[in-house]
């Protein structure tokens, strides 16, 4: 079918970002990002099985500045996807569907995911003794 130069229906970019829509797409983006992170987990476990030197190299790659930056991103993505996933399961059970609750739990998810990320990395650096 030829569609010609018909006007298109309004698409994403004409809408003002709202907490509902932004958190919704973030759930998908963090999900895809975590899938990539899971490939790194597969690499890391296989490195541990391969031998001490290979594991050493994997550890030093992951603790480089780029490795740490990615790991911080994956930590936040995991906490975000986890918290927002619980929010989704509540919705599936018919809980918290009123718009004021949706907005409130949205902000809780943002703050909780950032807070858990901070606590995790402080715990990690605490174990390392500041390295």
């Amino acid at each position, binding site marked *: 079918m030829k569609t010609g130069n018909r006007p298109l229906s309004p698409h994403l970019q004409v809408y003002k970002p709202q907490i509902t829509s932004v958190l919704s797409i973030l759930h998908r983006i963090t999900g895809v990002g975590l899938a990539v992170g899971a490939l790194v987990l597969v690499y890391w476990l296989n490195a541990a099985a391969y031998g*001490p030197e290979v594991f050493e190299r994997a550890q030093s790659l992951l603790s480089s500045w780029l490795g740490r930056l990615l790991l911080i991103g994956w930590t936040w993505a995991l906490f975000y996807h986890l918290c927002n*996933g619980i929010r989704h399961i509540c919705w599936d059970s018919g809980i918290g569907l009123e718009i004021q609750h949706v907005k409130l739990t949205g902000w809780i998810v943002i703050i909780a995911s950032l807070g858990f990320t901070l606590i995790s990395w402080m715990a990690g650096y605490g174990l390392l003794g500041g390295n």
Partner: protein
Amino acid sequence: MALRSDLGRVRGLGSAKGGTSHWWAQRVTAVALIPLSIWFIFSIISLVGLDQNGFKAWLDMPGSFVLMTLFLIALFYHIQLGLQVVIEDYVHNEINKVSLLIFNKLLAVFCVVSSIAALMKIAFGG
């Protein structure tokens, strides 16, 4: 009209001919991943800065091997289900879509098998 109940008519059908099985599997793996991923985060933090011997000592602790295996199975099942939806939403060329869907399933199986095999090698190997 056939004498069938509404449930009987809908069961196993829908446009994908899969009924609600994908939706349910995504929720069941999600529920399993809530405690498992919290355990995983604690474990990873405890492994910070350790060498291979430290990793092996962690894996030898009671529960580590079984929980890590359960985590990996639930994780890659959940990832496969999620990426499937993303592919179905954004890839409209039929050949590309089907190829990606097959690749997605095979990659998930490869990831779960290779990571559990790695765990077994560390736990039981010399």
